[in-house]
């Protein structure tokens, strides 16, 4: 099964050909958002970082999104005095052979002039993007990331289980699967490490797990929310097991950090927890869109959000496909839900049938079909201050807490 993707200078193929309008500080966000809004085009999206003082993680993330195969053009909008340099972001886009422009609102002469200039830039870019080279792609070219949000009792019984089956299929066919939320693997170190493809990866997983657990303990907050409890989940351990099943059964090839591309196909674990830093950044899993952005930074063409209670979010850069294991939620929020995995609980479909149906939907989306959230205009993004190393660095004196 093949379809036409968008061919990029670095050899990667994307499933969308989008323009991102990037604001480099809160002060320029209104102009960037207005340029996006008034462009009135599904392929024009706004993302940005609100801080004036920059942050290495945030810059690295923005650059990974500029390099993402779903992106064809970049317009960086700055105010003029902030740390992040819109010109340098545009330069990266240029290196990648993409449409690229940048501006400073202070130089353009304020809101109205900047918006007008931005609109004509975007209009021209959209025309130029019609000439983007196309190339055939198949399921083995896909990178798909998965996260859960708004979990309830169905997540671990149906939603994530179907994703796990699909991930097994994807990997068997040469594709790449990424799962994350190590903070929702509390108590599961045994299950995680036995899936490691070799001893080195096993050490990386142990180190990443211990770090995540230390982190939750130090901020005294675990990745749980009131809705989880109202929906029947009682502990982080219970939620974790229900979340972990989305990884399927394949070996874990390695641990990725934000903006790190998987070296080869297979199943990968993304660590999105902060690394220790004297500024003590963040909180565990601030919200689902942060997690989705992290998955996209590693190259995910499509991201799955598995929900029980019912999430409505989409995402900028890569389409968000929403899966629910709760048939009531599916019926209640039909305009927002892409896939009903709850059929396996009512017995209407077997797990295999459901995973196969999910694969069909994925191919449909990859070849240009819109997800419900794209159709509704949901283009959320969340880029906070965070600190994280560029690669997993297991200290030479590291000893696993448990082993």
């Amino acid at each position, binding site marked *: 099964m093949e379809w036409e993707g968008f061919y990029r200078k670095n050899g990667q193929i994307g499933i969308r050909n989008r323009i991102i309008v990037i604001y480099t500080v809160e002060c320029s966000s209104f102009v960037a958002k207005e340029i996006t809004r008034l462009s009135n085009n599904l392929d024009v999206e706004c993302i940005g970082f609100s801080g004036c003082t920059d942050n290495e993680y945030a810059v690295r993330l923005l650059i990974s999104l500029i390099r993402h195969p779903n992106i064809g053009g970049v317009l960086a909008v700055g105010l003029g005095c902030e740390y992040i340099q819109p010109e340098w972001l545009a330069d990266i886009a240029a290196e990648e052979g993409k449409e690229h422009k940048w501006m400073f609102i202070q130089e353009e002469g304020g809101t109205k002039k900047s918006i007008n200039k931005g609109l004509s830039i975007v209009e021209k870019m959209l025309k130029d993007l019609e000439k983007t080279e196309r190339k055939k792609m198949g399921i083995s070219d896909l990178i798909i990331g998965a996260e859960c949000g708004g979990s309830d*009792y169905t997540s671990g019984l149906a939603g994530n289980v179907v994703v796990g089956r699909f991930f097994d299929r994807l990997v068997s066919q040469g594709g790449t699967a990424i799962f994350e939320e190590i903070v929702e693997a509390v108590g599961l170190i045994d299950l995680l490490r036995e899936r490691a493809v070799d001893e080195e990866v096993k050490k990386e997983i142990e180190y990443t797990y211990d770090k995540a657990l230390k982190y*939750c303990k130090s901020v005294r907050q675990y990745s749980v929310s*009131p809705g989880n*409890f109202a929906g029947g989940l*009682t*502990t982080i*351990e*219970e939620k974790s097991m229900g979340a972990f099943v989305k990884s399927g059964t394949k070996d874990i090839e390695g641990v990725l950090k934000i903006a790190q591309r998987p070296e080869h196909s297979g199943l990968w674990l993304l660590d999105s927890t902060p690394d220790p830093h004297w500024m003590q950044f963040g909180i565990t899993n601030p919200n689902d869109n942060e997690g989705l952005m992290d998955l996209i930074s590693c190259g995910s063409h499509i991201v799955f959000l598995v929900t029980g209670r019912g999430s409505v979010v989409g995402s900028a850069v890569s389409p968000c496909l929403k899966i629910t294991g709760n048939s009531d939620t599916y019926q209640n929020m039909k305009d927002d839900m892409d896939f009903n995995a709850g059929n396996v609980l009512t017995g209407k479909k077997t797990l295999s049938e459901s995973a196969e149906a999910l694969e069909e939907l994925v191919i449909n989306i990859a070849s240009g079909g819109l997800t419900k959230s794209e159709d509704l205009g949901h283009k959320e993004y969340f880029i906070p201050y965070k600190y994280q190393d560029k690669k997993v660095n297991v200290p030479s004196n590291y000893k696993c807490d448990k082993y």
Partner: protein
Amino acid sequence: MKKQVAFKIEIEDNVATALTDIKPGAAKLRGDSEIKEIDAVENIKKGHKIALVDIKKDEPIKKYGIVIGAATKEINKGQWVHLHCMRSLYDERSSHLDVETGVPKDIKYE
């Protein structure tokens, strides 16, 4: 009475998950279970857990074949199992959440 159903995932689990709202009375038990029925002794909302055996205080609660927490008091077979009678072995804050709605009670809105 409407059909009541609970699901037991692994054979070593000591709780099952309600797939329908359950009122006191018999509920069908599906999944990896030797017994086909469990008697609920109180109301258990859809998605919540029912004890399949008597569980002593501090004894592990098992679901998916793993330990998901510990009992904070004696639990009888057929009772509702949630924040009021079990706790996480890691997370302290969650034991203070409202047992019905999960909402936090530790930050005052004033």
